[in-house]
């Protein structure tokens, strides 16, 4: 009896969440919805540290979602919408910041580090090859020397 009851409750709660999130935002044109979804996942809630506008329950996030919806209905492009918001809330709100003079280090450093790693790997690789080569040579030298010594020892007998 009890499991069935809790199952029913879980289903009821879950579906109510689904209905709630689906029906909240209305668009005159359904193609706006996917752009809206992308924008609210890429934009960061100004009040919270690690949430985007889509996930955040903060009142300011709700306001900004409405603002984005309003701008989409006004036929503004994604670029214009982002500019509109960054000129008020700064680049803080972009989870995917533009490349400019304050962010080139952020965008460039992965490639720089990859390059350094590649160079280091190449260098190590080359050094190892040389070592193995000279080692082989030493071993051969030593072997022939031993053979020589053994031979001269036999001769002495």
């Amino acid at each position: 009896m009890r499991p069935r009851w809790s199952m029913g409750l879980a289903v009821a709660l879950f579906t109510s969440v689904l209905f709630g999130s689906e029906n909240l935002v209305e668009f005159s044109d359904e193609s706006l919805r996917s752009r809206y979804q992308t924008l609210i996942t890429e934009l960061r809630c100004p009040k919270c540290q690690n949430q985007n506008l889509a996930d955040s329950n903060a009142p300011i996030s709700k306001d900004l979602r409405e603002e984005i919806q309003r701008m989409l209905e006004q036929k503004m492009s994604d670029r214009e919408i982002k500019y509109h918001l960054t000129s008020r809330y700064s680049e803080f709100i972009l989870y995917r910041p533009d490349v400019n003079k304050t962010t080139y280090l952020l965008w460039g450093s992965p490639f720089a580090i990859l390059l350094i790693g590649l160079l280091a790997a190449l260098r190590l690789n080359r050094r190892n090859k040389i070592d193995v080569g000279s080692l082989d040579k030493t071993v051969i030298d030593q072997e022939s020397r031993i053979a020589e010594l053994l031979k001269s020892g036999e001769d002495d007998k």
Partner: protein
Amino acid sequence: MKVVGGLFLNRLALFLPLVLFAALTIVLLLGLDKDPSELPSVLVGEPFPSFSLPALHDADKTLDERDVIGEVVLVNIWATWCFACRIEHAMLNQLAEQGVKVIGLNYKDNREAAITWLNERGDPYAFSVFDERGRLGIDLGVYGAPETYLLDATGTIRHRRVGVVDDRVWNNEFRDLYAQLIAVQR
């Protein structure tokens, strides 16, 4: 000679990880002092945004940016739901008493509650703009109350403070700039 030079460079290269580590340490140490929740104020140096909103005390009266622009003024974003605003209120009353013009922006609030609040605690504001839906708030980049903006006589935003303005903040951030702007105005 070439061999010696090569050796020297090799030796130096051994210190590279240490140098990188030191550089990273310095960068991270500097980062510790920063407040990650503080947004850069992009509107400093920009004109006060245009708006058209009702007055708090008179729903029929429409205010716009021309009511704000004209003299050196503090614009304070406040609300009755904002706990820190209670703490800040005494300071605003004190500033108003000293002759600083303060304009209120009542942000996403209930009109009756806001008027009651001012009746109870004193009204430091020359007038308050009633921004029920937070539209002017968005244009100002407001992300929490209280916030305080210092405007010069041309309506340009000269300073912004997110959070409470108390004695220390006023003395450190506002006082000198305010005196300077007032001097220019006269």
